[in-house]
């Protein structure tokens, strides 16, 4: 009997569209570590040691196949000096937009990576995780150039900038690209196995498919081409079925897809060009019984598991703090029970 694969082997195998020993699963838990260590979130966020310790304890508890090295998305505006609002029951939130006047984009510069305390804290988390866990993927993360302006400008002014000021839009994309490339490569150098590339604005929920094809995919591909490692695209619960083929062309190794979409249809449309992560509903998960958790896991495994190219995860990229451990344990148990290859119990998707 073959020994079980390590989480890293399992993930790398499925990314090649080859079936590993079982379907890998990512519990993208950025906050539950604080509860595990019995410290308030405010204290947790400020300590790379606590975050790393929390991640390792969570993996010990649930047995999932990754460690999360990027604590919160708003760090990507905090690093620029932007306002971030911390709270005791959820992730930190971007406050008032960083850029007061769109004309300021003309002179805007990305923050230096070296010596930036916010970036240094994330890099330290990744270093600690990489030092203490060699066979588990450590996933870094950043907000993509095309989506960062939501925090820099606010959503409304960003949509108007895209429509009315192509000159400033292009300049902002190029500034953000420099920042994202530098941060991603620093995370990989610190020991991240891959980086998550959060690009919710690129989803067809937010912009027209043609805008993705003409604009957003070009920026994503250009940025990813300069990142020296694997990149997993994430559209934070947005839709992407119509553009999954173009997403596969950006250089991403995987796309995390939202709970509104048909996982089997996405897998079919991806055509083996890019692996999928997803698409459990993290908000609804809060109320799941163990039976519901098992049913949801089975449904996702049956839709996307056969043939590999699939990692079970939530569909957003962050499981809410309010999701109880019992549900996470039930998900983990269901993957171990039903996710062992070959998935003989699952009917092949139509």
């Amino acid at each position, binding site marked *: 009997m073959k020994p079980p694969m390590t989480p890293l082997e399992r993930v790398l195998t499925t990314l090649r569209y080859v079936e590993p020993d079982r379907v890998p699963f990512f519990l993208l838990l950025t906050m539950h570590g604080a509860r595990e260590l019995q410290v308030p979130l405010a204290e947790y966020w400020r300590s790379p040691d606590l975050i790393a310790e929390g991640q390792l304890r969570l993996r010990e508890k649930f047995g999932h196949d990754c460690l999360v090295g990027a604590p919160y998305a708003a760090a990507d505006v905090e690093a620029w000096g932007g306002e971030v609002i911390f709270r005791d029951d959820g992730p930190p939130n971007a406050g008032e937009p960083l850029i007061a006047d769109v004309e300021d984009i003309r002179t805007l510069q990305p923050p230096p990576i070296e010596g930036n305390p916010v970036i240094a804290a994330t890099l330290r988390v990744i270093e600690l995780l990489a030092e203490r866990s060699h066979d588990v993927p450590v996933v870094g993360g950043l907000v993509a150039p095309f989506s960062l302006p939501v925090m820099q400008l606010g959503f409304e002014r960003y949509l108007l900038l895209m429509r009315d000021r192509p000159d400033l839009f292009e300049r902002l994309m190029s500034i953000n690209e420099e920042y994202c490339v530098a941060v991603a490569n620093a995370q990989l150098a610190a020991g991240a196995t891959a980086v998550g590339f959060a690009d919710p604005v690129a989803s067809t929920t937010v912009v*027209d498919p043609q805008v993705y094809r003409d604009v957003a995919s070009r920026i994503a591909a250009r940025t990813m081409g300069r990142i020296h490692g694997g990149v997993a695209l994430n559209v934070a619960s947005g839709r992407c079925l119509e553009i999954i083929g173009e997403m596969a062309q950006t250089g991403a190794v995987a796309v995390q897809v939202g709970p509104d979409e048909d996982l089997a249809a996405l897998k079919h449309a991806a055509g083996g060009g890019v692996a999928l992560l997803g698409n459990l509903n993290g908000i609804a998960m809060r109320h799941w019984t163990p039976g519901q958790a098992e049913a949801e896991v089975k449904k996702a495994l049956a839709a996307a598991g056969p043939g590999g190219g699939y990692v079970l995860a939530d569909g957003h990229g962050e499981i809410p703090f*309010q999701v109880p451990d019992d549900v996470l344990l039930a998900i983990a148990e269901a993957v171990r029970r039903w996710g062992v290859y070959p998935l003989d119990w699952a009917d092949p998707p139509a």
Partner: protein
Amino acid sequence: MDAHDQAQAFQKALLRGDRAAARAVLRDDLEGGDPVAVSEAVVVPALERIGASWETGAISLATLYLSGVLAEEVVAEVLPNIRPATGAAPSIAIVVLEDHHVLGKRLVLSALRSAGHAVEDYGHGLSPRDVVARCRAESPRVLLVSTLMLPAALKVRTLVDGLAELDPRPALLVGGAPFRMDPELWREVGADGTGNNSADALRLVRSALEEGPR
């Protein structure tokens, strides 16, 4: 063209971002008519269909937003008289609870104003206590609350408790991603209703105003 065709023409003009065409549809329809009737027959159905199109994925949020802003501007220009007289207390208020993501509120605000409602915008980043204080002072009949993150959505429960001390209290309608992704969440936090898009908001507001004080 009948009202149905007019509404379709208005909808198409909004989706194309064609200000001149949108203006022309309303002006044609208004000739010798009642602005409120034009709003009801042309503007509201067009906005309802656009909102529903976003819900089904047929149009993007960017298109929904830009068409909503255009509708608001064109209506203010061509049908200024559908708004209540200046100085009249708005019976509808809207707020983003606890966070700074204002786009959802903006979409609903545009739709309500285009449909002729006067709406007081309480802003964003307010705590439940702040919102209760505004409602105590201004007595809106309907309060719309937009949230993006689950923790803020759960804080609606605190808001409900605070509003319960007012007599009468406003009807509380909630919206935003957490409520869309968990269809039972609005009941859990004690709201009076929820909607997934600006079309739902128009319908729910209309029905809350018809129901009278709570």
